[in-house]
């Protein structure tokens, strides 16, 4: 690391280009900056034309926005990837075992490894799931594990995202864009493909069909509708898988099955990849005012006539308070030490931790236990005195709603700017597919990048962008 730098740059370290970036860097050095700037514009036009946009909640005009795309790829060596994917697989196995246990025998609670209050008082815990096993015992059919890096060999899991991780369409479209813009790079550098994801997703979902399903399982994607911020992704995935994209008004329970209204009458669905939150899934069983769900779908589910992906109630596993127990959870169910590290976490529900957090607020990142998307979080070092004081008040009012973590020095990868390469902080979200016999991790994932210099917040809703993520063949 050069002097004064507190973070690890993945491209250039100690003044030397790191091995995975060698070929790319050579290419970039010779590339014409004007041409690259033009390509960058082209990429934006391409995204607009193909409609890869998202809506921002609370935006009055309902403007569709683009997630900025940076044309410098984030490159991971095969060796690094193998280690990462082994760690992710271990963790995902443990999460599924944990969920099955929590909703059945609850041995981990009996063994005292996870406090019972954490489950009992948790909004993400669904009593409706008690005593049932989803088809193939798969709870988290799709997982997006958020990983951050702080050094050459230091990878941490930041979040497990076991509910409905989004962003995979950007992983796919970013690669498509790069292939179109820089075909010459891909003939020179051997990058592992990501394009198999939709096919694998369909196969993986079909493999989780309920036992009652005869013949080829019918898979569908459930979306809240075109106004949802991730609608593009929902339609993209349905399209790429070749399955129907349904909304609640297309669905009805017919003879104990969930069926969709087609031009020729109602047709049963066997596997529903739902992009609707638990709470809205079934107005009869959960939030009665939901217009997004299907009344009675939980009863069909419990009767074993449909697979819901992900299973309801998986939120208990990616809850930020549970997160701090993850090393124990991995060890409890796999008998192995966790390969991937957890970020040190203070649970504000514990008085001593709360005191520590209040004393060190300016150095910490504080998150809501159930929050996501970067909303409602505090980045201590970036906050003003007033913001800190206000947040301290919120913390004291409801400590159990928060956890705190040290401000990590996230690694950087350069982005392309008018004045050349410039380092920005990144994270990584690989996508994991779980079926009864297989855990399949797409080599790569979504690299999110904080576009503001020095910023550590990578969420697209907070001004983050994305990069194509390359895992090299060898």
């Amino acid at each position, binding site marked *: 690391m050069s002097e004064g730098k507190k973070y690890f740059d993945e491209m250039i370290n100690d003044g030397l280009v790191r091995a995975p970036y060698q070929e790319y860097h050579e290419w970039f050095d010779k590339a014409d900056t004007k041409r690259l700037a033009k390509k960058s514009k082209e990429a934006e036009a391409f995204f607009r034309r193909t409609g890869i946009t998202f809506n921002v909640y609370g935006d009055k005009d309902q403007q569709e926005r683009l997630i900025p795309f940076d044309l410098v790829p984030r490159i991971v060596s095969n060796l690094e990837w193998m280690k990462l994917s082994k760690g992710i697989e271990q963790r995902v196995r443990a999460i599924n075992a944990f969920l099955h246990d929590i909703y059945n025998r609850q041995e981990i609670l009996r063994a005292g490894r996870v406090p019972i209050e954490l489950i009992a008082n948790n909004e993400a815990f669904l009593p409706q799931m008690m005593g049932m096993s989803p088809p193939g015992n798969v709870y988290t059919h799709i997982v997006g594990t958020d990983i951050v890096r702080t050094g050459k060999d230091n990878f941490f899991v930041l979040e497990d995202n076991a509910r409905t991780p989004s962003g995979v369409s950007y992983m796919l479209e970013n690669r498509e864009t790069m292939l179109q813009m820089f075909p010459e790079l891909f003939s020179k550098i051997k990058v592992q493909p990501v394009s198999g994801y939709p096919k694998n997703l369909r196969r993986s979902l079909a493999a989780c069909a309920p036992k009652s399903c005869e013949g080829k399982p019918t898979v569908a994607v459930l979306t809240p509708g075109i106004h949802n911020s991730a609608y593009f992704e929902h*339609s993209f995935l349905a399209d790429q898988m070749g399955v129907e994209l349904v909304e609640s008004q297309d669905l009805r329970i017919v003879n104990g099955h969930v069926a969709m209204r087609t031009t020729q009458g109602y047709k049963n669905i066997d596997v529903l990849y739902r992009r609707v939150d638990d709470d809205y899934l079934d107005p009869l069983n959960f939030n009665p005012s939901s217009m997004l769900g299907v009344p009675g779908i939980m009863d069909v589910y419990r009767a074993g006539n449909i697979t819901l992906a992900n299973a309801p109630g998986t939120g208990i596993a990616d809850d930020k308070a549970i997160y701090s127990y993850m090393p124990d959870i991995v060890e409890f169910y796999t008998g192995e030490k966790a390969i991937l590290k957890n970020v040190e976490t203070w649970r504000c529900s514990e008085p001593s931790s709360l005191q520590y957090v209040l004393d060190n607020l300016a150095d910490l990142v504080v998150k809501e236990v159930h929050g996501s998307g970067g909303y409602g979080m505090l980045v201590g070092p970036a906050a003003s005195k007033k913001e800190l004081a206000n947040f301290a008040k919120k913390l004291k009012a409801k400590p159990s709603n928060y956890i705190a973590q040290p401000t990590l020095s996230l690694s950087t990868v350069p982005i392309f700017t008018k004045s050349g390469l410039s380092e920005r902080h990144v994270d990584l979200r690989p996508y994991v597919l779980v079926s009864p016999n297989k855990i399949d991790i797409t080599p790569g994932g979504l690299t999110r990048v904080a576009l503001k210099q020095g910023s550590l917040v990578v969420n697209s809703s907070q001004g983050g962008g994305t990069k194509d993520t390359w895992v090299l063949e060898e």
Partner: protein
Amino acid sequence: MLGKTAGGLYWMFRFLERSENIARLVEAGSRIALTRSQDSQTEWKSIITTAAVRKNYSTKYDSFEGSHVVDFLLRDKDNPSSVLSVVENARTNARMVRTALTTEVWEAVNENWMTLKALLKRPIKETDLPFVLGTIRQQSALVRGALHGTMLRNDIYDFARLGTFIERADSTARIIDVKYYTLLPSASFVGSSLDNVQWDMILRSVSAHRSFNWLSENDINASTIAEFLILDARLPRSLAFCTSQVNDNLNFLSENYGKKLKSNNLSDDLRKQLKTPDINEIFEIGLHQFIGDYIRMNNELGMQIEEDYRFNK
């Protein structure tokens, strides 16, 4: 295929067709306004009536000033049938049925929306009008081209075509309905400059002024024009053509699904109406009456299609 998707496709293509038809009407109107200085307000008024937005227009304007009419028809958000509104609706429907469209069709309709939204952002200057109208037609043609060139010929395609032709049939019928008196053999005499202008306008609103000249061999009179627009199956905007396309697509669907439905019967009835050997029989029934019946039946057919194929429930 989902009923909702079928409905989305049907409406997407109705809206696209409408954007094109409105552009044609404005084109015909601005032409007549240029060639005749007097009474252009009457012509603009008839265009507003043809576009079926009279009531809505009157809440906003008292007179039929050309610039108001053009603005209202092309870019007024309060007018659900303005080009800007329907292009946006078409795109919203396309988003809804994204999985049923090829990438090329989706991109074409998305680009159509982006282009026209930018183009219609500010009031249109008179000098820019031809360019704007040309762009509207061109964008619509791009979507159609992508549809023909890339989509599977299955039920998805059938619903897209149904939307196109139900809308087009309605549009042509309205053009005739509003101007029917100029097409009556009794009400016109050959060669009157008034009629020539009126006929020209009618033909222009269906982009058929040139093809008519070719076919009619200069035998221009009211009944040949009426016959052309109503019964000539060679003209892609005639009632006979539209209705036979609707009929074909409904037949494809019923073959495909193995079921004959109410809409098939209604469409057969409508087709029979146009089997009249020549235009004089229609004049005997009364042109106004005939067209009125046609519009109503076409409309009912549209609603029956929505019901038969479960667009909404």
